[in-house]
C-alpha cells in the first residue's frame, strides 16, 4: 500500500438547499430531521412523472447575497450583474460559494489569486435553462435568449465564480453524474497535493433538472413515481423495506480547501479536513450499482489517508432509497467494515434534502463535516424496517456522535463509485 498522503484543510462552508439557506439553517434542519420534500402541483407532477421533490423554493438570491455585502462588496456587486438572466443553479451555487468564501477569510488577500483554484462539480447542470431556451427557439428562433450560448455550458459557473471571487488559478468542471460532488473534492485534493494550488474553491453545483430529466428517471424506475396520496415527507425511505426510488432535491454547496501549510501560515480556523478520496469505475454504462466497486472506492479513500476502517465512526451513505442501490451499498459496507459495521453510525441525508444528483456529494460532505464538528448524527427519516440488521443505522431522532473520521459515499450512473474520508477539525493550527 502506498504511503498515506497529506490531507486538505476545510476552512469555508456554504450551502443553499430545500431545508435551509446558509450553514446554520441547514445544520439546524439536519438536527431536527426536517424534510424539504413536498408534493408538486398536479400539472407539474403529471408532466414530470414524479409526484414529489425537494425544491429550493422562495429563495431570494439577491437578498441572500446581500448578507455578504459587508464582507465582500465587490463580489456581491459582480454576482448581481453576472447572475441576472442566468441559470438558477448558478445563482444557488454562487450563494453557497460566497458564504464559504467569506467564512474562509481568503478574500483578505493572504493567498495570491493565481494560487487559488476552482473546481465546479457537476455535468449537465442547466437542463431547465436549456429546455426554456429550446421552447423559446422552437416558438421563434429570432428571439432566442441572448445568454443561451453562455448559459447552456456548465462552465458558465466556472467563469461566473472566478469573476465574482477574482480567482486566477486553474479552474474546471468535473462531472461524474451523482458522484460529481465527491469527484470535485477529489480533484481539489489532487491539485492541493500536487502543489498546483495553495487553496481551492469547490462548488457542488445544483443539477437544475427539467421535467424531461425527471420523466426520464421515472421511466427507468430510478425515481419514486407512485401517485399514491399521502405525506410527501415519507416517500424517501433509504434502507427501509418500503423504499421505492429516489426523490429529486435541489441544493448547491461550497467548500474552501487549502493545504495545511497555507491554512497554518494565515492562521485560518479549520472546520474539518478532507483526509482522502477513492474513485473507481465498474466498467458498466448502466445505472446498476456494484458492491465490489463501491467497496473498492471506500477502501481506496481509507488507504489514501492511511486510516483503518475501525477508526471510522460515521458513514454518510449514498442511500438514495432505490431498492437495488440500498441493498448493494449494505453489502459493500459490510464488506469494508466487517463486524465494525454494527458499531458504525450510518445515515442518509437524502430523505431530508432529496437526492441532489450532481451536488449530492458536496452537500453530503458538508453535512458530514457539520455533524463531525457539532458531534451529532442526524436522524434517518422513514427507516422503520431496515433491510439490513448488521449496520449501525441512526434511529429516528438525532444521536450524539463522537468520532474523528467519517466516510461519505456517492455513486453515479455508469458505475462511477466515489467515497471521501472527512476528518473532524483538531486545533492543530492554533
Amino acid at each position, binding site marked *: 500500500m502506498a504511503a498515506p498522503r497529506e490531507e486538505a484543510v476545510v476552512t469555508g462552508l456554504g450551502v443553499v438547499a430545500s431545508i435551509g439557506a446558509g450553514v446554520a439553517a441547514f445544520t439546524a434542519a439536519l438536527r431536527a430531521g426536517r424534510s424539504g420534500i413536498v408534493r408538486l402541483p398536479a400539472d407539474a407532477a403529471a408532466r414530470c412523472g414524479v409526484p414529489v421533490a425537494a425544491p429550493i423554493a422562495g429563495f431570494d438570491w439577491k437578498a441572500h447575497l446581500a448578507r455578504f455585502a459587508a464582507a465582500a462588496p465587490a463580489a456581491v456587486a459582480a454576482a*448581481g450583474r453576472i447572475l441576472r*438572466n442566468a441559470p438558477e443553479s448558478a445563482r444557488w451555487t454562487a450563494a453557497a460559494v460566497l458564504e464559504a468564501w467569506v467564512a474562509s477569510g481568503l478574500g483578505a488577500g493572504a493567498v495570491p489569486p493565481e494560487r487559488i483554484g476552482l473546481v465546479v462539480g457537476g455535468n449537465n447542470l442547466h437542463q431547465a435553462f436549456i429546455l426554456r431556451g429550446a421552447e423559446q427557439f422552437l416558438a421563434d428562433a429570432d428571439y432566442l435568449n441572448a445568454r443561451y450560448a*453562455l448559459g447552456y455550458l456548465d462552465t458558465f459557473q466556472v467563469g461566473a465564480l472566478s469573476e465574482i471571487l477574482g480567482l486566477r488559478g486553474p479552474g474546471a468542471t468535473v462531472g461524474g453524474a451523482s458522484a460529481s460532488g465527491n469527484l470535485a473534492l477529489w480533484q481539489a485534493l489532487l491539485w492541493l497535493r500536487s502543489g498546483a494550488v495553495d487553496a481551492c474553491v469547490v462548488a457542488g453545483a445544483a443539477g437544475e433538472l427539467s421535467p424531461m430529466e425527471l420523466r426520464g428517471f421515472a421511466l427507468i424506475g430510478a425515481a419514486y413515481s407512485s401517485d399514491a396520496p399521502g405525506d410527501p415527507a415519507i416517500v424517501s425511505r433509504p434502507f427501509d423495506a418500503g423504499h421505492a426510488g429516489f426523490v429529486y432535491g435541489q441544493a448547491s454547496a461550497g467548500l474552501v480547501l487549502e493545504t495545511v501549510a497555507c491554512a497554518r501560515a494565515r492562521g485560518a480556523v479549520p472546520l474539518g479536513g478532507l483526509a482522502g478520496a477513492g474513485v473507481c469505475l465498474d466498467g458498466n454504462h448502466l445505472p446498476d450499482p456494484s458492491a465490489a466497486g463501491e467497496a473498492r472506492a471506500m477502501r481506496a479513500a481509507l488507504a489514501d489517508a492511511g486510516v483503518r476502517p475501525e477508526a471510522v465512526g460515521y458513514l454518510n451513505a449514498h442511500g438514495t432509497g432505490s431498492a437495488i442501490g440500498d441493498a448493494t451499498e449494505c453489502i459493500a459496507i459490510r464488506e469494508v467494515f466487517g463486524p465494525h459495521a454494527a458499531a458504525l453510525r450510518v445515515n442518509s441525508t437524502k430523505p431530508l434534502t432529496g437526492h441532489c444528483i450532481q451536488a449530492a456529494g458536496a452537500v453530503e460532505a458538508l453535512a458530514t463535516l457539520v455533524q463531525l464538528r457539532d458531534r451529532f448524527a442526524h436522524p434517518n427519516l422513514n427507516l422503520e424496517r431496515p433491510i439490513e440488521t448488521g449496520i449501525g443505522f441512526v434511529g429516528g431522532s438525532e444521536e450524539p456522535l463522537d468520532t474523528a473520521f467519517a466516510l461519505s459515499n456517492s455513486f453515479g450512473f455508469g458505475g462511477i463509485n466515489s467515497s471521501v474520508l472527512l476528518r473532524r477539525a483538531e486545533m492543530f493550527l492554533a
Partner: protein
Amino acid sequence: MDKSAVFTVVKAVTQSVLVGVEGGQITPEKSLVQLGANSIDRVEVVTGAMEQLGVKVPRVELIGAKNLQGLVDILHAHLSRAG
C-alpha cells in the same frame, strides 16, 4: 408607434439588462457601450427590444447604430414597414 414610444421600450429593456444603471442616464445620444454594456448585454438589449416590439431586424443592419437613437431609428423603420 412613434419614435419616443420606441425609445421608451429600448430604455426599459436597457435598464433591465444593465444592473445599476439609473433611468436618467439612459438618453438617446448615449451608446450601450457608454452605459457599460458588454457584447452579450448589447445582443440582449436588441433582442429584448425586438421581441417587445414584435419586429425582426437583421443583425447586419444594426451595425450602423452608433447610439440608442440609432437603434430606435432602425427599430422604428422596421415597425413602420411592418405597418
